[in-house]
């Protein structure tokens, strides 16, 4: 059997920083393989993919050691173009990799560059569009597509180049579970039909459904584990990787104590912080949400779930008057939001946007932190003091002389926490987080949420997410938005048991949800997954489903792979 990708003890050092980012790592991909690459943020996953698809060394200046073979030939001599005939790459963010104005143009892009005849290109477009189930989108403008649709179109664009193996970087980061499932389903199908795939992903549990043949767990650039799935589940570092609930039960013994639930502020009164009365929200001619009746308490932790484009962000934007209700009304602390000034709203809600980079403009973190408070007319002494406090609250004070760093040079995770710090610097009473943990590993997520929820002075936190388990674990109330309405509004435990929710609304029941249904019929509130797992009787334990002969194959390869 021909090997498509052969990486032997390869290492990468970026010349810009002089730091070794990867290696030594070995990886072998043959037709029919679905390799899952996981590991904490910054461990070198993307670097490995760049090494395979040729961006290293062709686009990034980096020093490469070891040996890489693509399609059986040494990669050294192959240009990115040549490699693209074997390796197709799907980058993390579909927004940035779409180049066509229309879907057809986007899919045609690759074949056009290969200089194929028009007839052939047309045939391929029809073929891949049919395959990815996006035929109905062909004439649409890419600017109008939802995140999920975009990701599918981007994938079709890659398939149109007829690669033998596709490498996918964090495909699930910005997608709702259903869209993510559709994409992974297509990847799986591609593999089944003789292709191969390397998938980088933090959300391990979701990928396991598609029975990867091998798992490569990187940490700090080196392979910590390489081999079959069940072996991985046995050794995977709990609390760093999102494992299926079953595995938690099986490994109940080595579960760490669950993080203590952050203290909650006592209710000042029973006036809701944010209330919608028959509100309908939209943009221009288009109504996104209608007839919303919802009251979010002043001390509640509320999670908002829903598919891409359902209107989650729209819903919470109304709270800070970024859009005004076209019907009904929106009340803040009992008074119509329209009567509040931008500034007074800014001190009530600390709003953190989806994309952290969006607001960062100052040359230093210090000036960045000062911007909001200065608009409030605070004096420098107070600003300096507040800045110090919020940096500590978001764990950014550990970074040495961070106050003088340019904000955009911080790591992605740090930028995220900085944006929260910026919001906190204005002493808001409610924190609003739009997809705060997208594309981050479990440990960062846990830390992040812990600190966001525990910050002093913040009475309540409303957060939007696609991560169902995150919502169930950290919220004491979950609101589901879909089809222009609020379709569910319940406590986590109750929501988990509401069967109908999980069929629609772009949501999918995670193993945690199933576990709750199974083992906690009628429980009021949800214990932390760790406690739940520990509490379960051992008879519910199981051994992972045997996956015999692919196992041997991968185990063997896993070994000689890791020379």
């Amino acid at each position, binding site marked *: 059997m021909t090997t498509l990708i052969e990486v032997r003890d390869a290492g990468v050092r970026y010349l810009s920083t002089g730091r070794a980012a990867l290696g030594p790592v070995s990886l072998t991909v043959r037709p029919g393989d679905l390799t899952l690459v996981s590991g904490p943020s910054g461990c070198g996953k993307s670097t490995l993919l760049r090494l395979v*698809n*040729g*961006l290293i060394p*062709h*686009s990034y200046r980096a020093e490469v050691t070891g040996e890489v073979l693509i399609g059986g030939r040494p990669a050294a001599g192959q240009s*990115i*173009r040549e490699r*693209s005939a074997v390796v197709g*790459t799907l*980058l993390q*963010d579909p*927004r*940035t*990799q779409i*180049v*066509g*104005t*229309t879907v*057809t*143009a986007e899919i*045609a*892009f*690759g*074949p*056009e*560059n*290969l*200089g*194929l*005849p*028009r007839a052939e*290109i047309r045939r391929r477009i029809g073929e891949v569009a049919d395959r990815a189930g996006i035929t109905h989108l062909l004439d649409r*403008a*890419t*600017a109008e597509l939802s995140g999920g649709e975009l990701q599918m179109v981007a994938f079709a*664009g*890659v398939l149109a180049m007829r690669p033998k193996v596709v490498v996918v970087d964090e495909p699930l980061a910005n997608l709702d579970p259903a869209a993510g499932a559709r994409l992974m389903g297509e990847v799986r199908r591609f593999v089944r039909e003789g292709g191969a795939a390397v998938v980088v992903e933090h959300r391990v549990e979701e990928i396991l459904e598609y029975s990867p043949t091998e798992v490569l767990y990187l940490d700090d650039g080196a392979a910590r584990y390489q081999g079959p799935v069940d072996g991985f589940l046995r050794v995977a570092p709990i609390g760093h990787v999102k494992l299926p609930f079953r595995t938690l039960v099986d490994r109940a013994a080595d579960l760490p104590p669950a993080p203590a639930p952050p203290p909650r502020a006592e209710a000042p009164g029973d006036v809701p912080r944010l209330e919608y009365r028959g509100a309908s929200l939209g943009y221009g001619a288009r109504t996104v949400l209608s007839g919303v009746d919802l009251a979010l308490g002043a001390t509640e932790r509320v999670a908002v779930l829903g598919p891409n484009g359902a209107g989650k962000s729209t819903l919470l*934007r109304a709270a*800070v008057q*970024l859009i005004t209700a076209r019907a009904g009304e929106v009340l803040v602390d009992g008074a119509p939001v329209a009567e509040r000034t*931008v*500034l007074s*709203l*800014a001190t009530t*809600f600390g*709003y953190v*946007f989806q*994309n952290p*980079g*969006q*607001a960062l*403009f100052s040359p230093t973190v210090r000036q960045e932190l000062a*911007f*909001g408070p200065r*608009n*409030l007319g605070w004096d420098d002494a107070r600003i300096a003091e507040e800045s110090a406090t919020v940096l500590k609250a978001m764990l950014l004070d550990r970074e040495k002389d961070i106050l003088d760093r340019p904000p*955009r040079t911080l790591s992605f995770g740090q930028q995220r926490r900085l944006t929260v710090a*910026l*919001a906190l610097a*204005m002493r808001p009473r409610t924190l609003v987080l739009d997809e705060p943990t997208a594309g981050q590993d479990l440990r960062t997520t846990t830390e992040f949420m812990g600190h966001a929820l525990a910050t002093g002075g913040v009475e309540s936190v409303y957060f939007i997410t696609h991560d169902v388990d995150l919502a169930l674990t950290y919220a004491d109330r979950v609101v589901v938005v879909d089809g222009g309405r609020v379709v569910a509004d319940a406590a986590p435990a109750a929501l988990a048991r509401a069967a109908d929710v999980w069929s629609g609304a772009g949501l999918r029941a995670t193993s945690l949800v199933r576990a709750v249904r199974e083992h906690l019929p009628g429980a009021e509130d949800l214990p932390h997954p760790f406690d739940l797992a520990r509490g379960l009787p051992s008879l519910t334990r199981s051994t992972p489903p045997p996956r015999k002969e692919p196992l041997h194959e991968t185990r063997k390869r896993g070994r000689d792979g890791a020379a």
Partner: protein
Amino acid sequence: MDVTPRYLGAGSFLSRRDPRVLLVVPALYLVAVAGIDDLRAVLACAVVALLYYRAAGIPWRGVRANWAFMLTFSTLIVVANSVLTGADTRTTGDELFTVPLTGTVITWATLSYAATLLVRYVSLAMVGFPVAFNIAPSDLGVAFARLGLSQRLAYGVDLTFRFLPSTWAAFRETIDAQRVRGYEHSHSRNPLRRLISLRPVVIPVTVNALIDAEDTTNAMDLRGFGGRHRTWMRELAFDRTDLLVLGGFAALAAGMVAARVLGLTEHVWVP
């Protein structure tokens, strides 16, 4: 506001033309009317321009605002040009009146000349509009490529239109993100202060766009962009009508240039 290009003239005579025609005609027309001072000559050209514009079938309500802008802007320039600074108006003919402040003498010649300028601007706009509203944005890149522009730059034109809507969205998002931090756009009379107050918007929008662009570059390299030969899905070919239209305008240009060389159109026409 809508920054995405609007394709208004669908199905019209000009929309059925090869996009290259719509790009070349304005150039030819420009050659034709450049440096003509004779109102009659410009009017003659304007008639052709008008016919051309009618053939574009652009609905009036779609471009009302654009014309309003165009007319006010041109009128301003014309007035400034010929009336306030009388330099260009050969002061033949008898004086009608004098402009109070500047003291420019207004003669029939002045007015005739002003009219000439205005007609020229308006007719230029007429041949220019179809470029904006009768070329499908996806056709622009290939049109330029087939007009001899570098394949890569030609694709850059396509790419620009791809980035327009997302840039607009990013711009909106950033303004929102800053507003929740208490940002309000300054309406100070001091231009410096106004510019400084724009930094919280202009800088993040730009920097984000640049950082994303790194990814886009990678994505394009990974899909084989930049090879010597590139197919363009859209197939372009001049048909007979295209050639006729081009030929017509070429003739017009040639004629007018000839007339200019012979000095037939260099004098301001006074009735």
